């Protein structure tokens, strides 16, 4: 039995090695035949394309591919970080609303979750992008739902302390601006992920035994204190693992930016692949970034999970 297992594993390892060698030799022959370079030397060459959105890092077309990819990565982080914060807040609110004693509020939250979860994210992104670019007025007639906040088909403009957006020429200047691409991506990711987070929050709170709440109340705790000191600490324990995977999903889903033209990492890598023909390196860059992200996030969450886990309970 032991010998059979060893033989099986040796055969499997040999087959995998053979497959890898076959793929490698094919790729080497194909690259040579097509005159495509291999390796990462191209990262130092001049990229030669403009990037529409460079908020965190300065960039011009004369910079290298490496710099362009770094700008893409920064853009991915920008939308993912903001998305995680907003989706958590919205998701928690909707999850709590689903449990509210108010019938109307609970039904509304339930309908939101059911609708959003059953429509592909890509469709929702296209919808938000169309809504912003087609249905919002030009900057000259921009909607102003709150003083200083302007919604237009050229983007969303909001005031910073001491710096209010002003209409100058055909667009706004001053304040802070979200491009239509960024706004559509952020709204889409937040709306979509919030529906999943709401379900996690709801399940987490429902998992706390009824007796715990009764005990808190009989101790004379107010509803707020009961939630803060009794229900949430127990619910969080159950919520952390699925929340982590939702955050990771949001980061991975931000790669759909390529479909609406927000220059995230995947979209810059895509342009790079098209220009240099170095598809293997391009896909490798994308995969390396996301694998690093998912592995480090799961390590972080495992550490947190150990900290909040009950002492002495089985892992």
């Amino acid at each position, binding site marked *: 039995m032991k010998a059979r*297992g060893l033989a099986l594993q040796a055969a499997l390892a040999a087959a995998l090695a053979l497959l890898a060698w076959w793929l490698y030799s094919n790729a080497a022959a194909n690259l040579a035949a097509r005159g495509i370079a291999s390796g990462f030397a191209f990262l130092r060459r001049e990229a030669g394309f403009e990037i529409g959105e460079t908020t965190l890092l300065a960039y011009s077309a004369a910079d290298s591919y490496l710099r362009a990819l770094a700008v893409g990565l920064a853009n991915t982080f920008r939308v993912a970080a903001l998305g995680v914060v907003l989706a958590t807040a919205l998701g928690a609110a909707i999850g709590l609303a689903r449990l*509210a004693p108010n019938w109307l509020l609970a039904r509304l939250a339930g309908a939101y979750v059911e609708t959003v979860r059953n429509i592909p994210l890509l469709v929702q992104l296209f919808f938000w992008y169309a809504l912003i670019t087609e249905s919002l007025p030009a900057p000259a007639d921009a909607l102003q739902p709150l003083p200083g906040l302007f919604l237009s088909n050229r983007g969303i403009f909001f005031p910073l302390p001491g710096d209010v957006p002003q209409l100058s020429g055909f667009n706004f200047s001053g304040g802070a601006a979200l491009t239509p691409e960024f706004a559509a991506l952020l709204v889409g990711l937040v709306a979509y992920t919030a529906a999943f987070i709401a379900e996690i929050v709801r399940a987490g709170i429902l998992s706390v035994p009824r007796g715990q709440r009764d005990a808190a109340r009989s101790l004379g705790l107010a509803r707020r204190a009961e939630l803060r000191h009794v229900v949430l600490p127990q619910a969080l324990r159950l919520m952390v693992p699925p929340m982590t995977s939702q955050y990771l999903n949001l980061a991975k889903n931000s790669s*759909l930016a390529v479909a609406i033209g927000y220059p995230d990492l995947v979209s810059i890598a895509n342009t790079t692949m098209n220009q240099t023909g170095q598809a293997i390196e391009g*896909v490798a860059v994308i*995969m390396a970034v996301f*694998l690093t992200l*998912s592995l480090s996030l799961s390590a972080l969450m495992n550490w947190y999970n150990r900290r909040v886990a009950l002492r002495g309970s089985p892992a």
Partner: protein
Amino acid sequence: MSSAFSWIRRNLFSSGPSALATLAILWLAARWLPPFLDWAFAHAVWQASDPRACRDAHGACWAFIGEKHRFILFGTYPFEQQWRPAAASVLLILLWACSAIRRCWHGWLAAAWIAGLALIGALMWGGVLGLPYVENERWGGLILTLLLASFGLAFAFPLSILLALGRRSRLPVLRYACVGAIELVRGVPLISVLFMASVMLPLFLPAGASIDKLLRAQLALVLFAAAYLAEVVRGGLQAVPRAQVEAAEALGLSYAQAMRHVVLPQALRLSIAPLVNTFIGFFKDTSLVLIIGLFDFLSTVKVSLQDPAWSGFGVEAYLFASLVYFLFCAAMSAYSRGLEAAPARAAAAGLRRE
């Protein structure tokens, strides 16, 4: 009357905050609902052969959907042959509906699927029974989405069982190979797997060999779905009590026999509801093939907006696309909820009997 009144009091105005929430919702509805209904229905244009009728109106242009529905549903499939993808779509939906009914879970269901898929292939490609041949570059629209999802699941599901069993194997090489494959695919976005299939795979094939673009995308989707399904199946496997395996071994069953007759039937039954949820996610994810240039349903919707005469109706077009995807996914999720409720009902009935 008084019962309705007390219901309202109990459910809408039970406390100060609750009453405030009710009033806020009613106020928002009064403000936003009438303009929306005006746009979507009262001022909407339902029929027009000229886009100018839409541009003059102050409502939604549903006429756009009417004008483009053949292209949205069937893509560039030859116009007079479009009954073929229509019939194939209906057939495929019937096969899925039938597979959802517990009474149909017999050996003949597999035979029905094979026969059905062969018939769909004959309908779509043609070249037999006097049907003109249509190359698969011209397939598009809803049928392509349904085919990508169906074939994707049909191949991913068996593969996922092998991966899940491999991940729980005692042989370290096999285990690490399966863990590596599953975690690699789950750790990266689907779009990078699709890029891998569309731009990277051709570089790894021997010179002269080539795989059709549709097939390459299908391979990527199979790989992606298999990795996610494998984790669901593994959850089911973990829920089967250890004593079941030991009992099978004590009876002298081999590993394959024990898995086939004892463990897998129980594990898969336990994971039906989460499997259906993964199916829903996968059905939605097929829309990403748009990014690598395949003509699925979402792609035909997007391309139909590029007609300059009819451009600018994206909101209507994507609402329509949302509705179609929603109908499919909501049907599946209602089914999955029913499955989750069924064991609970059975357990409750069992308790009552005792």
